[in-house]
Structure formats: structure tokens, C-alpha cells
């Protein structure tokens, strides 16, 4: 449990961090809350030569409202997301989801930006990020670009972020309270075997699913099937499509078949809950 040798640098601004990333390239890893990187380093699965700690860049930690959206800084912790009055009132899905992440210690240290960039296929945030159609800002040597949630998650542990970019901000829309996140936990790790986030509005619903496939996905078949119907029967019919078109993961904790089943069950439950709110 002793990491290999590494250099530690603590930039004081995003620009400085980006410059460091440029300089060290593949040899560097960005550290935010450290809840994915540090365990991998302690097991020596990850052996970066340089660790760039962005956790002390004060300007990266905030939750604020601007023009109908809520902007969340990259190093905002899960517990800050969970307890934010602003989010609880105006985008409760994110707070609800954050409350399901890990345990209290993890939530106190882990950050939304770190979690999204790591893109663990069973992490919680991707589900609401997709369902909310969030926007994600990435800053690199070429400046800032904004990536839509559905473009962000590329593959297993892989996102649209380039090696020399840093995720700086996530923006989510203000929503009605008709949202829900329902998750079945992997018993040991607490990660999602199937986590389903639903954002409902009179015109339709959006469904994000995590834990089931190599990357989180929008359950578009569910969204299309339910349309603007709201009956229990319609919910049940729609939820049955929650794992359509994906190749579910299977491991010692849940077979692919069971994960797909849980996706359907949790989709039904999340729809029911969101629509009852």
C-alpha cells in the first residue's frame, strides 16, 4: 500500500495546472479529491511521475446560479453538492444522487469533477448528468470548450477530456422537483449495480443509467416509449426498455442479466418516484 515515487505539485490556478499538464504529458495525473487516484496509486496500478493537485485552487469550488442554470466548480465535494440549499431547491436530482455516493468520508473528500473525469462505469454522477443534459467545461492550452453530457462519456473510464485539459465546471439546468435517482448498490463497494436518474417534465422524461454498461447512457428507448404518458401501465411498459441496446456488464457481483433487470426495475421506480413528486 505504498505508492511508487512521484513528484507533487500544487498549482494555484487553472492556467498553471494546464501548463503543468502540458509540460509533463502522460507522466502526470491530476489529483482533486483523490478518491479514485490515490487508491490506484497505493496499489501501484497507477504510477504517475507527477501528481498535479488542483484541490487547493480556490476558484474551482463553488455552486452558483446564473441565468437559469446552476454552475458547479470542479472541486466541489459530493457532500457540498448533497447539502447545497441552492441545488436542493433548484436541481434536487444532483443532491439526491450525491447522497448515494460512497460513505460520509468519501463524500467529504471526493469531488464532482474528479468523479466525472474518472468515469468509473458504476459511479453515480453520470446518470443525473446525462438526464439533466448538463454541460461540462474543459480548459486546456487551446482555451475553454464546452461539452454536452451525451458527448462527454466516451467509453469505459474514458471521457471527451484531452490529456492536457482540466474539467473546470459542470452546469445543470434548474428543474422541477419531478426528479429521482434510484440505485442498487454493489454490496461491497457501494458503487451502482444499476443507478437510474429521471428528470420528468410535462413534455417528456429523460433517463440516465449508470452501472449497467461500460459507460453510462441515456435510456432513449424508455424516454420515447413513455412520451408524455404518465399511467402506471405506461411506466411499466417504458421501463422494460431500460437496457435496450446496451451490452450489460457482468461480474462476481451481478450477472449481465441481473444488471439489466435491475436497470428496468430501478427505471420503473425512478419514474414512479419522479412523477409522484
Amino acid at each position: 500500500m505504498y505508492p511508487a515515487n512521484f513528484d507533487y505539485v500544487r498549482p494555484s490556478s487553472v492556467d498553471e495546472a494546464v501548463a503543468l499538464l502540458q509540460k509533463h504529458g502522460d507522466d502526470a495525473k491530476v489529483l482533486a479529491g483523490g478518491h479514485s487516484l490515490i487508491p490506484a496509486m497505493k496499489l501501484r496500478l497507477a504510477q504517475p511521475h507527477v501528481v498535479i493537485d488542483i484541490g487547493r485552487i480556490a476558484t474551482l469550488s463553488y455552486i452558483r446560479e446564473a441565468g437559469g442554470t446552476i454552475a458547479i466548480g470542479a472541486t466541489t465535494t459530493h457532500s457540498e453538492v448533497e447539502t447545497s440549499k441552492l441545488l436542493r431547491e433548484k436541481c434536487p436530482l444532483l443532491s439526491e444522487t450525491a447522497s448515494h455516493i460512497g460513505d460520509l468520508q468519501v463524500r467529504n473528500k471526493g469531488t464532482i469533477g474528479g468523479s466525472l473525469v474518472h468515469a468509473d462505469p458504476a459511479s453515480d454522477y453520470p446518470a443525473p448528468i446525462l438526464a439533466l443534459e448538463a454541460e461540462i467545461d474543459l480548459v486546456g492550452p487551446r482555451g475553454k470548450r464546452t461539452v454536452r453530457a451525451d458527448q462527454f462519456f466516451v467509453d469505459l473510464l474514458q471521457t471527451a477530456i484531452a490529456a492536457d485539459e482540466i474539467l473546470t465546471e459542470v452546469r445543470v439546468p434548474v428543474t422541477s422537483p419531478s426528479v429521482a435517482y434510484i440505485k442498487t448498490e454493489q454490496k461491497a463497494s457501494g458503487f451502482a449495480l444499476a443507478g437510474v436518474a429521471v428528470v420528468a417534465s410535462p413534455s417528456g422524461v429523460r433517463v440516465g443509467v449508470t452501472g449497467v454498461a461500460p459507460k453510462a447512457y441515456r435510456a432513449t428507448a424508455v424516454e420515447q416509449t413513455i412520451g408524455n404518458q404518465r399511467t402506471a401501465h405506461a411506466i411499466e411498459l417504458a421501463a422494460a426498455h431500460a437496457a435496450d441496446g446496451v451490452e450489460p456488464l457482468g461480474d462476481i457481483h451481478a450477472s449481465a442479466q441481473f444488471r439489466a433487470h435491475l436497470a428496468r426495475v430501478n427505471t420503473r421506480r425512478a419514474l414512479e418516484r419522479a412523477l409522484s413528486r
Partner: protein
Amino acid sequence: MWPPRVRKVKLTVSHSVPADRQRVFDALGDPAILRRCIPGCESLTATAPDAYEATLKIGVPGIKGVYAGIAAISDKHPPESLTLSFEGKGGPGFVRGSAAIVLSPGEAATRVGCEADVQVGGLIAAVGSRLIEATARKLAGDFFNQLSKEMSATT
């Protein structure tokens, strides 16, 4: 069943490569092409006919391991099928396996079907079991995507 029987990772991948069967078959035995297509391949040299030594830096972002490995091709039935066996070891553990590769003709493309048995051991098995299958699938996908690019580029 008890004790729980956990299968080693079985991977079934099918990919369409835009070239005729013979070209694809030849490409799968061409060290230069293989080096370009195998994800994370840092070196690959032929040590004997159909036998290679390679250094791979593979994994997923942030969790990469360097593996030194050997690979061999057997059961060659040009241009229809071949078997690739491989063995690699590195700091995080070892990977061993074999892949039965079947090439079937399609329209302006060759369908490459690959059935692989992969055994993973050591640290990666102990701590990464939930990601192994997905990683293997991704690496196979990356390989065929690159091979397709390679084939279309030289068409």
C-alpha cells in the same frame, strides 16, 4: 453451483473490416500493422515465423500497466481462420489467453469474428475484477477500429 464458478473472461467480438479476407488475414500476421493496431503496443518483433515478442502499455486511462509478452499464431487456414495465443506479464499481474479468429467474407468488407479466452491474474484479478471484462472488450474494439482505419487508409 457451489463453490461459485466464475468463468474466466470469455470474449466474443465481431467486427467488420473494410478489406478482402486475404488482406485482413495477411494484416493479422504483419508485425508492422499489428504494432500500429494493438492498443498500447510499444514494440513488437518477430522472433520466429508466427511468433512475436511485444511490450504493451495497456489498461485504461490512469491505470496502465506495462506488459512484456509473447504471442504466437497457429492453426492457420488462410484466409479463413487462425488462432492467436498470447501471454503477458507486468507489475500489475499477468494476462494469458487465446483467440480463435474467423474471417468471413461480407460486402466490400470482411467480418472478423473473434472468440477469446482470457485469463487474468495477480493484482488486476484481485482488485479489478469488475473492470476486466469491460477493459478486454474495449481493447479488442480499439484494435479492430484501428485495423479498419489501417485497411481503409491503404485501400
